[in-house]
């Protein structure tokens, strides 16, 4: 017998909901916030193209429409389906990652893409979700005693390390770190003891000098430039310097929509993708930046709220995993364009131009909504109705 609210009917606990009931359960306010953020993103893409829907905004709108449909599909799918096939998805993503490794198209100096014909898929993005699902499933049935057994932690460490290593090899430092951080958050929540984190962190730090040898030239440059931005103002430091100029010159209220000189005169690099926050903050100032940040914070709060409303560990872990991933996107991207952390190619969620990230995020919100819709479901250790 779960803890809970007495209004929850047994039928709901068993997940026997009609489609209508499920639709009723979807948190439409969350969907609304997502749409507001996406709309802001389309506006910024319109501005980035100097007041044109082409080439970015229109295509992004289509992707968003497809993504929203997928999100709702995921949301309405029985959560036990995701639980049951968590490892399968994980496996598929792992295979795709290896496939990218073997036969990937070179893009942006790194092998990240796999051409699916219709569009190019970046399996490392979807892996973020697959890993969350897999870890959530693994820890769903675990109690504190299990978690404190070191041998119990060996399989999840491998679950993380294999995709981590593959993504790092691509090389995509940003995504790899996000995988690690997202997994770490889940491990933290299930109660893995502090010294293990300390051990892993210490090991990681110790590995940095070794890892440094394996970093690509441009990655080393980015780190060095981050440590000393004036090192190369016309080379690697140029982007971040121009980004800071754009932000700073935007001031409190910005230069106005489509009036950002840094962005529109192309001083700002990658203004439609990684540096779109800069453009927004240049055109709408700190006020605009804070509005967007607030919307993101609201989305994160939704994530927390859904987590706490959820009655099963799988849902809580999925919700927190997705929320954490989303938060990492936001934080890493904004911190990077403001020069707080080195430039690692992480897009601004729901706003940056790009298909896979949008898909990943909306699927992630789909999972979050799915958790919300199925928050009261009773789930056994293996994901069945009865324990």
């Amino acid at each position, binding site marked *: 017998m779960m803890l809970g609210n007495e209004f929850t009917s047994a039928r709901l606990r068993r997940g026997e909901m009609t489609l209508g009931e499920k639709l009723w359960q979807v948190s439409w306010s969350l969907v609304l916030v997502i749409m507001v953020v996406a709309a802001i993103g389309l506006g910024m893409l319109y501005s980035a193209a100097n007041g044109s829907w082409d080439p970015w905004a229109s295509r992004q709108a289509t992707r968003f429409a497809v993504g929203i449909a997928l999100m709702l599909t995921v949301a309405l799918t029985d959560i036990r389906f995701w639980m049951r096939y968590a490892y399968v998805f994980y496996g598929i993503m792992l295979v795709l990652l290896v496939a990218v490794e073997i036969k990937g198209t070179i893009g942006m100096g790194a092998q990240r893409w796999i051409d699916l014909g219709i569009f190019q898929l970046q399996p490392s993005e979807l892996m973020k979700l697959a890993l969350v699902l897999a870890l959530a499933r693994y820890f769903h049935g675990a109690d*504190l005693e299990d978690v404190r057994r070191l041998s119990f932690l060996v399989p999840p460490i491998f679950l993380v390390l294999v995709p981590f290593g593959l993504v790092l090899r691509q090389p995509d430092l940003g995504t790899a770190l996000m995988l690690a951080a997202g997994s770490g958050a889940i491990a*933290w929540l299930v109660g893995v003891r502090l010294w293990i984190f300390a051990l892993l962190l210490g090991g990681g730090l110790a590995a940095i000098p070794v890892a440094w040898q394996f970093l690509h030239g441009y990655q080393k440059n980015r780190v060095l430039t981050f440590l000393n931005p004036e090192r190369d103002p016309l080379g690697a430091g140029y982007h971040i310097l*121009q980004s800071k100029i754009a*932000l*700073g*010159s935007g001031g409190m209220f910005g230069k106005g929509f489509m009036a950002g000189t840094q962005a529109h005169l192309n001083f700002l690099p990658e203004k439609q993708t990684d540096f779109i926050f800069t453009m927004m*903050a240049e055109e709408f100032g700190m006020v605009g930046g804070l509005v967007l940040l607030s919307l993101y914070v609201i989305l994160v709060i939704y994530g927390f709220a859904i987590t706490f409303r959820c009655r099963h560990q799988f849902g809580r872990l999925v919700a927190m995993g997705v929320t954490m991933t989303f938060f990492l996107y936001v*934080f890493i991207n904004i911190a990077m364009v403001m020069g707080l952390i080195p430039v690692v190619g992480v897009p601004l969620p729901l706003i940056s131009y790009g298909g896979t990230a949008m898909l990943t995020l909306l699927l992630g919100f789909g999972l979050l909504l799915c958790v919300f819709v199925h928050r009261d479901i009773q789930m056994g250790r293996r994901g069945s109705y009865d324990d």
Partner: protein
Amino acid sequence: MKQRDGDRAKMFTRRAALLGGFQITLVGALVGRMYYLQVVESDRYKTMAEENRFNLRLLPPPRGEIVDRFGMPLAVNRQNYRVSIIGEDILRHVRSAEEREAAVSHTLDALSRIAPLSEYDRARVQRELKRRRGFVPVTIRENLTWEEMASIQVNKPDLPGITIDEGLTRFYPFGEKAAHLLGYVSSVSEEELGDDPLLELPGFRIGKQGIEKVYDLALRGHGGTSRVEVNALGRVIDEQTTEEARPGAEVPLTIDMRLQDFASKRLAGESASAVVIDIHTGAILAMASMPAFDPNVFTRGLSNNEWKDLVRNPRSPLSNKAIAGQYSPGSTFKMVVALAALEGGVIQENQTVFCPGHTELGGHRFHCWKRGGHGTMNLENALAQSCDVYFYEVAKRCGIDRISDMAKRFGVGEMLNVGLPGERPGLMPSRAWKTATLGESWHQGETLVAGIGQGYVLSTPLQLAVMVARIANGGLKVEPTLSRMTPTPGEQGFLDANAASPLLAKPPPSIGVTKAHLDAVRGGMFAVSNGPRGTARRYGIPIEGWRLSGKTGTTQVRRISMRERETGIRREEDLPWELRNHALFVCYAPEDAPRYALAICVEHGGGGSSAAAPVARDIMLETLRLDPARKRPGEEPRVEDLPPELRALMEEAHAKAEMTSAVYGPPAPPGLLEEEEDDEDETTIPPNLEGTPL
């Protein structure tokens, strides 16, 4: 089970809260950073964004014109049409290097049907298009003719990517005829870069010689600025002129270009120079030096070979011989010697000296140019016939220091600061000078040699012209001037400085020579050109009101050997050019009311009366006809309207000028220009003194 779930949930909640707290911290860091960048440091970044966005572009000012005394333009700016190609206009759909070359080739082919292109230009365009950003125009050819420009414009629809733009280049309409005077402009060298940012403009040119150099600051003007909005690639988005360029000032010269033109033509074919000066104002009316160079070539830049040719030419076309050529004045110096003696009271005008053809001093024999001697000579005869013995005697009585002092009062051996680069001071020796520079005491023999304008004495044609001017104007110390403008700006700029220095603010000071003495010397000069035995009597102007008074001078370039003297074999024409004597002539006119003085030196011309006097006469004729000090262009009498005798002389002078300028360059063959006639050219006798430089 329940307990276990409870523990797990508690743990989850606690750790989720911690995670949330961690996230709040991170968001706080983001907000703080945002505040720092967008509020605290905002002004700094705003400035940087503006700097990013706007380039200040310097607008070059048009260079000031140089005009002659009547406003005739001597140095102007000419439209220079340039055809360029913009890569992105034709290379938009190009995928490979081969396709690019083909596309460019196609366009260049079409263009070359209108304006011929060299293979070199084609290769350069291909190369630059590969290297430059697509929107940067690559110059294909400069200095298009107007016809080429027009037909490119007409055919523009068929010439994608081709644009025509225009700039200004310096142009000297008279080319070589005022080259030394005006100088030339050329690109700024590394050392010349200074405070003026204009100097760093690509293609900016500054004066390197002559008036262009001296008045460079006045002519240069002030650059304007325009704010150019550029994008990150440097492509111009918008341009606004914030300050118009202020053109350089016009520099008026005292030159009369018609006279300058005539003098240059008349001197052409020789290595020669001439200066015509207004004896009352010191205004230089013409200053010609031949051979010259084409300053227009310098504007575009010389090839290595062109430069070598100019430098190696033994007639030194790059040198302005009128101010930089230092020659022994020879017999033209005799007026100064005579005045020194008259002023010193050592001779009287009518005192005579007997010339047996030579004189003796300290065992050395000093020869007169006339082997048999002139007989009894007074001052007038001695000047008219250029008797050397008379002046040996006069110099001996006078002493070098008095001669030296007088010479300097007349400008010989003195920097006259006419305002052109390259002016040289000549040399007027004195006892003190010799002790100071050579550490030796002065010999009296050297005084004798100086008495006939030889030995150490060196002067420039400009100095000789000034000397004659000061004789003719009654002993006033006129200073030679090329422009009323000062080369350095006044408080309110150049026009102010210009207004503040009128040419004749006050009459020039006297040099303190008795008028009677000057008249005596002028009488001698009159006899040179008009007297029955004058050395230049055949090149006078035998018409009242046009008569000129002059003095010939022939200075030898090498010593005459004893053997030559004995055998008498010394025909100038037999000598190689560079060993022939320099021919000089100085004069003023008209005799009854002098206004113009002229000095001329024909290097290795042979004799003063045969090579220099006729040229001088022709130039003086033209000067008197044009009368630039009093008549504006158009007021001068036409050649056809002159009295027949004068008309004949004038037509001959013009014909000769046309002829010499036609056979420009190599020396005119003897006989073509001058009648071959054994003239009474006084050949300066070599002073047989050891160590006397010649």
